[in-house]
């Protein structure tokens, strides 16, 4: 069954993705992307980040429009709560990435989705970031994602869907595996 005569439509252009995989394997330099965001401190713990351009396919690229993200902390941390916490934005990134993966893998496997909802929770002991207990890490102790999927597919197929979406997810890899991070003064 080819995608063109498939009645399944999750709004993902799998043919384009498969074409990209083939084209980029032949031209590996074009596959090298740089994702960027820039951040300006506003006041207190409030900052505003913008995302607009990125590099990929051997050229400078632009999003359709510029996106803004207000980052702050809630009032119980004596902050003004002008936006989501950075940790929540990480959760948003992970669950957004996995959900996109679910749709793409479902399209590829001929599974019509009717609805996909997910909740994500990150457990954190803030004694770590407060420096109050050296045995507590700063980051999440665990992250749990729970998908509810309504689709014409068996439970086994849906299990395979969420497993494959994790396997192909950039943010899942970023969260589960170490990454070299360099922070320096301009």
């Amino acid at each position: 069954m080819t995608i063109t005569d498939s009645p399944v439509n999750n709004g993902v252009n799998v043919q384009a993705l498969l074409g990209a995989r083939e084209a980029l394997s032949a031209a590996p330099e074009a596959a090298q992307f740089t994702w960027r965001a820039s951040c300006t401190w506003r006041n207190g713990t409030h900052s505003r980040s913008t995302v607009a351009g990125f590099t990929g396919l051997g050229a400078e690229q632009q999003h359709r429009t510029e996106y803004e993200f207000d980052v702050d902390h809630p009032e119980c941390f004596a902050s003004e709560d002008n936006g989501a916490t950075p940790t929540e934005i990480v959760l948003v990134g992970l669950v957004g990435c996995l959900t996109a993966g679910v749709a793409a893998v479902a399209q590829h496997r001929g599974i019509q989705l009717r609805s996909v909802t997910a909740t994500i929770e990150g457990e954190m002991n803030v004694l770590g970031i407060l420096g109050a207990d050296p045995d507590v890490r700063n980051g999440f102790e665990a992250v749990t994602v729970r998908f509810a999927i309504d689709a014409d597919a068996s439970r086994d197929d849906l299990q395979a869907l969420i497993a494959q979406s994790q396997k192909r997810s950039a943010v899942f890899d970023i969260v589960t595996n170490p990454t070299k991070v360099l922070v320096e003064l301009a």
Partner: protein
Amino acid sequence: MQTTAVVVGAGHAGLAMSRRLTERSIDHVVLERGEVANSWRTQRWPTLRLLTPNWQTRLPGHDYAGDDPDGFMPVADVVATLTRYARLVGAPVRTATTVHTVRAAPEGFEVLANGDVLCTRAVVLATGACIRPAIPGVADAIPRSITMLTPLTYRDPGQLPDGGVLVVGASATGVQLAAEIHRSGRPVTLAVGEHVRLPRTYRGRDIFWWLEATGLLAERYDQIDDLTRARHLPSPQLTGTPEAVTTDLNTLTALGIRIVGRLGRIADGVAQFSGSLANTCALADLKMNRFLTRADQWATASGLDDELPPPHRFAPTSVDPRSPLELDLTSGEVTTVLWATGFRPDHSWLDVPVRDRTGRIRHDGGVVTGAPGLYLLGMPVLRTRASTYIHGAAADSDALAGHLHSFLGSRHR
């Protein structure tokens, strides 16, 4: 010196090829750096047994004729079998002959071996897929106090210092050695990345019986969806033991082995493991069950349900939610790291421009691209999924010898 074809390597693949060339009256020599079955003699640990049952260890014109068809051949018997086979087929093996260079020449190829030059029209690369250990870059960050071993240097637990052992990699090699070392009293931590889980037996039959009967092993390379992935899949978590026991992660956990995620990085002597272990295990369980379903459907369609025990499923891999993400290699708890992270072939002596940008030889089912007369044999999923195993060389060598034969003919015209 002149010969029509040179086969490099006198293991199962090179010997099978020799037999196929003899069948076609193609004049050839087999060059072998050591003795017949050299890797099996010198680069494998002594308790290793084949993953495939004896009945499946078929070579061209030679089926297993021993009294234990369902057993698993110890490495010493593999050596004996291949040595006997070399004599049986009268393979023209030149032992202790190291190939230094193979390069293109006006009439084919020049092979430099032991200081001699052989001119030949065809070369078959049959030196094997498991020649060098594939050790990840993170190995550079292992503290100097730690003893490092690979499956090529490992012999038995006695050569390890006392203390804990980190086994990196959970394919056939990793799970076998983790179990063996753990039984020696050294506590083992096993770092598990992507892996292939299979039970040793299912419904009373060996898993390789199922893999063959269902037609999976016969799947051709040009019909496999993701060939790159198929060719780089780790070997299944299987052990050949007289008792035909299953060695999966649940077995190892029950032995007391600590299972952790894929080794990602070592920072200041602390090994960090991936948090994706649960998904890695879930994927392996799903894939195993997908195959078992295919096996059950095949059994029903073949009318075998009455003679086989009923279908069943194995317990999912149980992952300890407290499995650590870090292990301090400077604390003294771990004294040895064993890299069971796979193998690579070694074609460094091949001076013919046939490699892709990642250094792999480009080929179409063993017919090397861009170098007529050059062939590759004895590699995973070379022509079918069976190519990965000894018996796969029978059909592969036949196909490639046939191609080589027509190539010689076409050049004559």
